[in-house]
């Protein structure tokens, strides 16, 4: 009897850790956009959760309300998120770094207030659902293939695999892009805008491209959240999501794409793994302890190791 209980416990833990892996995966993709903006271009984008909301809701609405197929909705919603990146960037990229941070976070809040209040379109706080049927079929067929190698017992495993593969592909593509002349100009913009301009580079256009691409990455992260939660709620896209993204970013280190994945896996393994520690406290207080830990981690990193685990100190430059 005891053996049986342990086996069940182990199974449920596998499911638990698959869930943690999915969270770490979409936080990594989300933070890749921050890495591109903050780490490589020097743009303090604090509205990443807003771009993610635009992508996720655009996908959901295109499927549910406009009858798009799921696979067509993905690229269209990504383009919509990129258009928002351009729309926000055009007026605000000329501002200095801290104003830019506040304008982008304000934009994200406008999006969240809009998704909360436009109940007839988004369902408001009742949520938006019904976009995931296509994915469910795909997930089932992946699960059938996994069953042939004996891994068919975990319903969330297909989503974890697709999230992880997507994250790896994006990391490879972004790292390659960083080695092109385009990537080098981005770094030049971060290091010394005036020098880049003196060399005839259109600094504004490069910043705009960075912001639009970052928004696309946020949108992709948003699709995985949408599939993971099966219902979209406005509260998912609170500013705290972006703040935790910054925590992942600086844990991994600035100007390093694989570091983002490492940072995300480590942070979420710690945050979720500590759920197994039995504390004589009610849930809301345990939650408070976990976020105090995130805060202390951010402070300690910035005080003692601002370049994070894998970043280089000389890349901690912001042209301001």
């Amino acid at each position: 009897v005891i053996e049986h209980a342990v086996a069940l416990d182990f199974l449920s833990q596998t499911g638990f850790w698959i869930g943690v892996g999915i969270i770490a995966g979409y936080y990594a993709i989300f933070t890749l956009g921050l890495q591109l903006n903050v780490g490589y271009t020097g743009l303090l984008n604090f509205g990443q959760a807003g771009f993610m909301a635009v992508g996720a809701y655009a996908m959901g609405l295109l499927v549910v309300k406009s009858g798009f197929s799921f696979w067509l909705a993905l690229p269209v919603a990504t383009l919509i998120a990129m258009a928002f990146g351009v729309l926000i960037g055009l007026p605000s990229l000329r501002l200095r770094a801290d104003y830019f941070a506040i304008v982008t976070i304000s934009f994200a809040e406008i999006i969240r207030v809009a998704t909360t209040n436009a109940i007839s379109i988004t369902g408001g706080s009742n949520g938006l659902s019904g976009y995931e049927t296509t994915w469910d079929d795909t997930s089932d067929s992946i699960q059938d293939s996994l069953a042939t190698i004996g891994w068919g017992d975990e319903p969330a495993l297909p989503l974890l695999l697709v999230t992880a593969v997507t994250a790896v592909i994006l990391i490879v593509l972004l790292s390659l892009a960083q080695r092109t002349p385009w990537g080098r100009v981005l770094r030049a913009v971060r290091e010394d805008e005036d020098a880049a301009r003196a060399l005839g580079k259109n600094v504004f256009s490069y910043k705009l491209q960075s912001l639009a691409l970052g928004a696309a990455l946020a949108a992709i992260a948003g699709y995985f959240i949408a599939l993971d939660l099966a219902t979209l709620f406005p509260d998912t896209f609170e500013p705290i999501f972006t703040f935790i993204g910054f925590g992942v970013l600086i844990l991994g280190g600035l100007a390093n794409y694989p570091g983002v994945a490492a940072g995300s896996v480590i942070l979420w393994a710690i945050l979720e793994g500590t759920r197994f520690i039995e504390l004589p406290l009610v849930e809301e207080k345990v939650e408070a302890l976990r976020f105090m830990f995130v805060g202390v981690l951010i402070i300690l990193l910035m005080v003692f190791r601002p370049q994070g685990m894998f970043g280089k100190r000389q890349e901690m430059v912001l042209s301001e």
Partner: protein
Amino acid sequence: LEAGVATQVRGPSALDQALDWARRNPAQTAVGILALIVLALIVRYSLHDVAQASINGLVSGSYYALGAVGLTLVYGILKLTNFAHGDFLTFGAYMAFLATATWGLPLVAGILFAVATTAALGVGFEKVLWRPMRRRKAGLLQLLLISIGLAFVIRNGIQLYWGTSQRKIEANTGATVEFLDLRIGRIALFVMIAGIVVLLLVALMLRRSSLGRQMRALADNFDLAETAGIDTDRVVTATWIFAGGLAGLAGVLYATALGAFNPNTGFQLLLSLFAAVILGGIGNAYGALAGGIVLGLVQEWSTLVVAGQWKVAVGFGVLILVLIVRPQGIFGRERTL
């Protein structure tokens, strides 16, 4: 036809001249635009509704202003975008709750206790965190992220001790004052008057006192002020006493007028405080007052046109619009850019 050509040659058009005047007189232009909005609203709705919305706007504007002035002082003098400022307000509210509800002290003692403890919190973080980081020449991003980490620690520290349930500071929130058929809560009226008086005193301190002059010198050029023999550590400590104390006061008054509060109350207000600070021109105490009141008025007027839940979004929309037209804020100087 010839006359038309002649006027074109004669110089800039009337529109260009008007725009140029507007650029040189931003405050008058802002007042002019607000007056036009009021007129349009009065024509479309009734004078009574617009007046009532304006009173509500002045009340919320005075919370914004009171919360914003500490933020703007710290920004102006230390160049620190303090994301933990909203949680300073929450801390003040809980300190007053501790003094009044737990220890049974009267509200005035609770307010004084909140002001003192929040000022101490500000000074404490200055000593253990901000001063060492300034010595290390920490960058903008580093300081900004530290303040976000600090915000997490304060907010969740409060949640760890008091939990997430709504708390109340006992005061008669139901009582209202009526005149000319317009209503204003008695506490709201008190908060508004207290807020405006305190802000005028702070502005007077900045302009007239020796400490105020030294603060403005640091805001202009920190290193030069230090070279000129100003005891910068002392002035910075004084700045944190003001910023923390005002945040504590704002937190108690806001929480009392709101009726109920929780660990997230201050953070939810923070973006509006940033909006007020930037609208008025960052680092400018009069600007924080003006920016807060403009933000409050515009938000409340918007409730005449669209549903009340949208007013937060309207506030941020106005912020983004103002920044596009005038990146340094209404009262900000070109140089601070």
